[in-house]
């Protein structure tokens, strides 16, 4: 393993997150290479210093403060469910539902009306058809009659 490869793996080596094969190769390299082993020492030192930074703790009464925030949240949820706040939040949904119902009603009304209008048309058409058929047949008889008389 060359220096470039070893240096890329030094961080994982430090955390013992390399496989056994890589570990032994890195170890071998570090024995020979002073620059790489110096770099590893620097990383170890930084790690050791960082881990010595004192940890921070929350002020006493953390759970009590959390608990009161939790109660506030639960209260506001109830308000949202049963109060005006929630109604306003529901408004867009109600508006969408009302629009759908309106569109469906208008569509059904249109279908019903158009079917009833077409029924009237058929009736009128039938009456007119019979009337004009009779008219046409009498006209045909009138025009044909003189011709027949002439032939005779």
């Amino acid at each position, binding site marked *: 393993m060359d220096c470039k490869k070893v240096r*890329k*793996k*030094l*961080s*994982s080596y*430090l*955390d013992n*997150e390399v496989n056994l094969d890589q570990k032994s190769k890195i170890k071998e390299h570090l024995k020979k290479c002073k620059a790489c082993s*110096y*770099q590893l*020492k*620097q*990383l170890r*030192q*930084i*790690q*050791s*210093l*960082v*881990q*010595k*930074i*004192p*940890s*921070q*703790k*929350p*002020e006493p009464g*953390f*759970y009590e*403060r*959390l608990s009161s*925030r*939790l109660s506030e*949240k639960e209260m506001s949820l109830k308000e949202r469910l049963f109060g005006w706040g929630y109604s306003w939040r529901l408004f867009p949904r109600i508006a969408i539902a009302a629009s759908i119902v309106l569109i469906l009603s208008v569509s059904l009304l249109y279908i019903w009306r158009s079917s009833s209008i077409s029924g009237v048309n058929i009736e009128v058409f039938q009456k007119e058809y019979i009337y004009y058929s009779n008219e046409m047949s009498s006209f045909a008889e009138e025009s044909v009659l003189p011709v027949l008389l002439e032939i005779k």
Partner: protein
Amino acid sequence: MHLIYSDEQLVEKFKAGDKDSFRILVERYKSRVYNIIYGIMGNRDEAEDLSQEVFLNVYRFLHRFKEKSKFYTWLYRIAVNICLSARKKKNKSGSIFSLTELSEVNNTSGKMELADQSFSSQKMLENMELACKIKSAINSLSEVLKTTFILREFEDLSYQELAKVFQCSRGTIKSRLSRAREELRQKLKPYIGEKNGL
């Protein structure tokens, strides 16, 4: 007799309606969550506020937790997400450790001495200065590198656990930690080395 429940048992109890188990989980993890958030945000008020936000989310979503991972990796994931979104909102790079906090470190700087060094006032001053430099160097890392580094060094999470927290591969974690450490090494090079016992 005081029973010590595992995280898994407490989660089960909470899901079954035992709200007291939530309190035990909070008491168990509040300091760790606070410390991580403090490390990322660098401000006590924000650390308090966001830590509470984390546990409020835990309370709200714990019933959805499928227990495919450990409870604490799930918890840290919530913490990291909350920090990153808070950072986005702030949209500015704050100091991860404020000056007042640095003076607190100075007071406890006895903890900062290197193992092979004799304890002297001169050394203490050097260590105090070094602590400031280290914190400032960590602060200069990008959000993702900083968060990964903090969880690794402060909480000692394995690469596998970090991959679960960040929902990425172990390779990505390796690469992030390697980059973070290299950046820190470059920045701290003048302050560490033979002078400090190497």
